[in-house]
């Protein structure tokens, strides 16, 4: 069924009025090579019954594996109330509604979400969310270029300890807008940015420094020293943080030594750990908070609290003049949206957990990961790759090629971790592993004993 309400006669008279022969001609500026008549690999439409059957089969293929992969998406317990509330008809929408102010309940929820994210990150303002953590980092880099008016280089320092997918996404989002991303190497013994790594940039025009905490290896960076260094040189600090970890770690707004610096300028991250299931990679949502002085350069929607003509409190979209429906090509962003439904789940999750609940989740995840690493490193041929503290993720080295070991573990129903070789071949055969509060001691023992078997078999082969 066609969803275009115009009759053939309507279309003809509209084309005539603008002097064009056909609808296709309107797309002439797109090169023919980029215009696909049909999408290869997309089959003909199936009936609802056929689709239902296909999806049931696909879901069965997933099984219920024991998952020890983190690397940006984390399996946490999601209380049943979260999605029971998020899927209520009043909330069940992907976006802020048109005529947003007519939906006061949705705006109040977004306002409360913003308040919680600002509080969690220790910064003053939050937007209503972005697509995901990776695109949020790209947006933060563009925002830093707009906000740092003392710098003219558009150079952003990005340590290689930042999630490799985030680095690729930031380059894709911002690379063609003149931003220059410079990689900072990490210390292969510590898995962190070494203290002296920044010295060679002294005296150079740098716009912003990205710091991921905990970093991609789960390790803790010396955020205070890094932040002090940047702020003393008018370099903006972009923090990439895990929201669960903020229940235990110093929030980005407080990074830096007392008196020396006033914390990160912008904090971004992946919101998935807050009540959103893994669901094969998405949809998730990105969060972004910042210092008040940068609020006008912040992309996305912001909900504010105000009073109506009668003096009663109400909620409204604020600072819209720089959004794309008003400022078009010069908007703060033309690729962002608010992930309303996921934010609804996260807001309910955070309000159910409260600060104490979130802290228990973070502490339990940390304890389980320590238990996991202790169990795995008792297996012959397995050792910890880096020394020093981690949050809920760690890198381990194994003495056999990783890919076949992971395949064997998968056959035992265990997702053993992320193969670090794809992104960090210099580390040799290595795995990034994670355990959250969802794993029991029995789960951890099961993994350790399966890993011992797999490595023994690999050595015997």
């Amino acid at each position: 069924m066609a969803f275009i309400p115009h009759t053939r006669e309507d279309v003809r008279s509209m084309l005539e009025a603008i002097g064009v022969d056909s609808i296709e001609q309107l797309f002439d500026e797109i090169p023919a090579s980029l215009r696909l008549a049909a999408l290869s690999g997309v089959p003909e439409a199936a009936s609802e019954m056929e689709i239902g059957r296909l999806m049931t089969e696909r879901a069965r293929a997933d099984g219920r594996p024991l998952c020890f992969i983190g690397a940006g998406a984390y399996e946490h317990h999601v209380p049943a109330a979260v999605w029971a509330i998020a899927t209520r008809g009043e909330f069940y929408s992907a976006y802020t509604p048109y005529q947003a102010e007519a939906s006061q309940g949705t705006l109040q929820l977004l306002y409360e979400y913003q308040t919680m994210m600002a509080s969690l990150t220790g910064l003053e303002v939050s937007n209503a969310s972005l697509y995901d953590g990776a695109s949020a980092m790209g947006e933060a880099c563009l925002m830093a270029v707009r906000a740092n008016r003392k710098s003219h280089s558009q150079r952003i320092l990005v340590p290689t300890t930042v999630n490799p997918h985030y680095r690729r996404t930031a380059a894709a989002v911002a690379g063609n807008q003149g931003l220059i991303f410079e990689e900072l190497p990490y210390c292969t013994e510590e898995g962190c940015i070494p203290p002296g790594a920044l010295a060679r940039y002294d005296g150079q025009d740098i716009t912003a420094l990205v710091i991921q905490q905990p970093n991609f290896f789960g390790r803790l960076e010396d955020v205070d020293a890094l932040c002090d260094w940047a702020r003393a040189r008018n370099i903006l600090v972009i923090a990439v943080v895990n929201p669960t970890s903020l229940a235990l770690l110093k929030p980005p707004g407080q990074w830096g030594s007392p008196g020396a610096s006033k914390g990160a300028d912008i904090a971004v991250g992946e919101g998935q750990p807050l009540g959103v299931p893994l669901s094969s990679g998405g949809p998730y949502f990105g969060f972004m908070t910042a210092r008040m002085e940068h609020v006008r350069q912040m992309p996305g929607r912001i909900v504010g609290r105000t009073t109506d003509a009668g003096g009663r409190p109400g909620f409204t979209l604020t600072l819209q003049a720089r959004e794309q429906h008003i400022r078009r090509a010069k908007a703060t962003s033309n690729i962002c949206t608010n992930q309303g439904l996921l934010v609804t789940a996260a807001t309910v999750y955070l309000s159910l957990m409260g600060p104490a609940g979130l802290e228990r989740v973070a502490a339990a995840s940390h304890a389980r990961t320590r238990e996991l690493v202790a169990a795995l490193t008792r297996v012959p041929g397995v050792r910890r790759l880096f020394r020093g503290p981690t949050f809920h993720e760690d890198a381990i080295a194994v003495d056999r090629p990783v890919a076949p070991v992971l395949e064997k573990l998968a056959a035992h129903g265990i997702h053993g971790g992320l193969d670090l070789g794809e992104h960090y071949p210099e580390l040799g055969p290595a795995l990034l592993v994670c355990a959250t509060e969802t794993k029991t001691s029995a789960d951890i023992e099961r993994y350790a004993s399966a890993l011992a078997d797999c490595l023994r078999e690999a050595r015997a082969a």
Partner: protein
Amino acid sequence: MSNVPSDLKYTKTHEWLRTLPDGTLEIGITDHAQHALGDLVFAEVPEAGRKLSAGEPFAVVESVKAASDVYSPVAGEVTAGNTALASEPEVINSDAYGKGWLMRLRPAAGGAAPALMSAAEYEKLIAEEGG
């Protein structure tokens, strides 16, 4: 009817220029422009030392309904941005040609003479635009 002082020069994009005794230029947006934008809530002014080419946007003025670029009619180096606007952008509405100035600029030596309008020419332009 908009206020168009006769001692200033004007541009098609609604900026005004005043030549100060030391040869630097003071630049802002016209009374007609502030009126069209409505109540201003924010102005982003350039840092001293920034080099501008002719026609380059140097400031953003934001009202509750729009955020608009302001263009430098001449090439040169910014000697001052009006930082007082950060706390009271509304003076652009109330005093567009005085306290509402946006930046002061030292014109680049040997730059091409910009195409500027006299007050009479600018009045004609805004009359044609329906102002």
